[in-house]
């Protein structure tokens, strides 16, 4: 004897399993193809007449009325009738021309709140969107970088919105997916970060410009749709400089810069060019300072929360990172192993990406 089957539940459960995210390469390849694919040109009247003969009659009637009206107007002009009021100014033209970046929609009204991020260990500070929580990521060869706005909803899907990579005083750096290399000039650095993989060769050329970062000479480069990898997966806009022999690379995410949007699960925020300028203008080089390391005893480190409200022991290879709104975040090899957050004495706490409030 078998039980009756809830086929609806079975099918829903079974079909829930499978891929949820399109591989980036398919998207990029498709975009490369559309770069050379012309769109179908439409003649609206021909489509409508085929599909709607009544529309053809209406169109004919409208043309007749227009011709009559035009005739009357010309007649009064030549006859020299009374002065007509000046014509109304033409209606607003479509405000966006093809090729222009889309203007923020109604859903993008909120501006981005910036707050100061200081990295004393690597020696820099800058203003950044408060919702871009920093995390430390491995770059290989024991070098680390700081990623901001990682996780779904930021950047190009799961890519960080911004990654800052700082090299050593001898000029060695591991930017993007490149191997560790020594650089001594901006030219060296430019060659390193502009290393387009062979499968992204069909896009528009990269654009370079000179700028200053904290008063020092720097350069930037950006690329088009099909050419956005540049050795940094998903990065679109690089700013790089060398300060006291140490190379600095700021790799901004493609979608954030290109489409001026910070997407979050709750709202899309407007990331305007002015916001980008504010971020870059706020950048300051600092003297790298020794950061107090947690005590290590028998392979176990004691971590103390930034506000001193608690401490705990964790494996020594775990790294400590401080988010902007949580007390402590512990990482292991770039993957969050444990996140500890503490609220304030009013019971207000931030959970995941939800706004601060009494939600716990």
């Amino acid at each position, binding site marked *: 004897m078998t039980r009756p089957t809830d086929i609806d539940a079975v099918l829903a459960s079974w079909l829930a399993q499978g891929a*949820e995210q*399109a591989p980036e390469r398919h*998207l990029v390849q498709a975009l490369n193809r559309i770069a050379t694919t012309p*769109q179908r040109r439409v003649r609206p009247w021909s489509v409508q007449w085929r599909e709607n003969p009544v529309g053809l009659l209406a169109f004919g009637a409208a043309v007749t009325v227009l011709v009559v009206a035009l005739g009357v107007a010309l007649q009064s002009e030549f006859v020299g009738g009374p002065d007509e009021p000046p014509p109304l100014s033409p209606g607003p033209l479509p405000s966006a021309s*093809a090729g222009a970046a889309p*203007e923020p929609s109604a859903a993008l009204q909120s501006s981005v709140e910036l707050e100061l991020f200081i990295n004393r260990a690597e020696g820099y500070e800058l203003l950044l969107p408060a919702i871009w929580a920093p995390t430390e990521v491995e770059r290989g060869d024991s070098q680390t970088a700081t990623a901001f706005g990682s996780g779904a909803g930021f950047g190009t899907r799961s890519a960080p919105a911004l990654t800052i990579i700082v090299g050593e005083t001898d000029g060695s750096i591991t930017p993007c997916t490149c191997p560790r290399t020594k650089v001594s000039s901006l030219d060296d650095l430019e060659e390193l970060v502009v290393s387009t993989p062979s499968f992204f060769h069909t896009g528009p050329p990269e654009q370079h410009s000179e700028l200053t970062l904290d008063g020092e000479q720097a350069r930037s480069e950006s690329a088009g749709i099909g050419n956005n990898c540049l050795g940094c997966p998903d990065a679109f806009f690089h700013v790089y400089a060398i300060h006291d022999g140490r190379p600095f690379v700021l790799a901004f995410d493609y979608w954030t810069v290109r489409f001026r949007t910070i997407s979050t699960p709750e709202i899309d925020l407007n990331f305007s060019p002015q916001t980008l300028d504010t971020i870059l203008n706020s950048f300051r080089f600092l003297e790298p300072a020794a950061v107090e390391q947690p005590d290590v005893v028998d392979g176990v480190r004691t971590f103390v929360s930034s506000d001193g409200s608690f401490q705990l022991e964790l494996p020594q290879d775990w790294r400590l990172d401080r988010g902007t709104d949580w007390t402590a975040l512990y990482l292991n090899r770039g993957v969050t192993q444990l996140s500890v957050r503490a609220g304030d004495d009013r019971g207000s706490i931030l959970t995941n990406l939800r706004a601060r409030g009494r939600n716990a």
Partner: protein
Amino acid sequence: VDRRLVELAQRGDQDAFARLAALIGDRLFATAHRIVRDFDAAGDAYQSALVHIWRELPTLRDPERFEAWAGRILVRQCYSELRRVRNLPPTLDLLSVDSSVADATVSVSMRDELERAFVRLTGEQRAVLVLMYYRDLSVAEIAVHLGISPGTVKSRLHYAREAMRASVEADQRTSVQEGRPA
């Protein structure tokens, strides 16, 4: 989907189209993967669909209906992929199951039965099942999505559900006979 982005893309703005593709791309790919049951074939269908969507976009009259319209193009590309794959030597390529999301509702043996039953369905029947049970669309929405009548949706759905139900019940009978939990 932002209407303004659709209108920009209709006028040939590739940046706007790229953003649209990123917005709906995951849903399109996930749907294709479930219909064609093969990662590479789903990727091919997805890519072809994006190119078709770009080319035909100026013909879309109502930008508000962009996503349903794009979904219809994707499903047609899936049908093409299935026809192409059908001409290849038959294989049974089971989707890998992520144990973290697998639940007790569907046992391993039942999954196999479901997979076998599903690949015997036509592309049209697969599409209505996926749109109903994965995309959670109503019969009316599926009709709009596929450009067919609600009656046709119901008919395809009925046949597909019964075929899938038969496979599940066959698995349950086997389980009882072999004394393993259904």
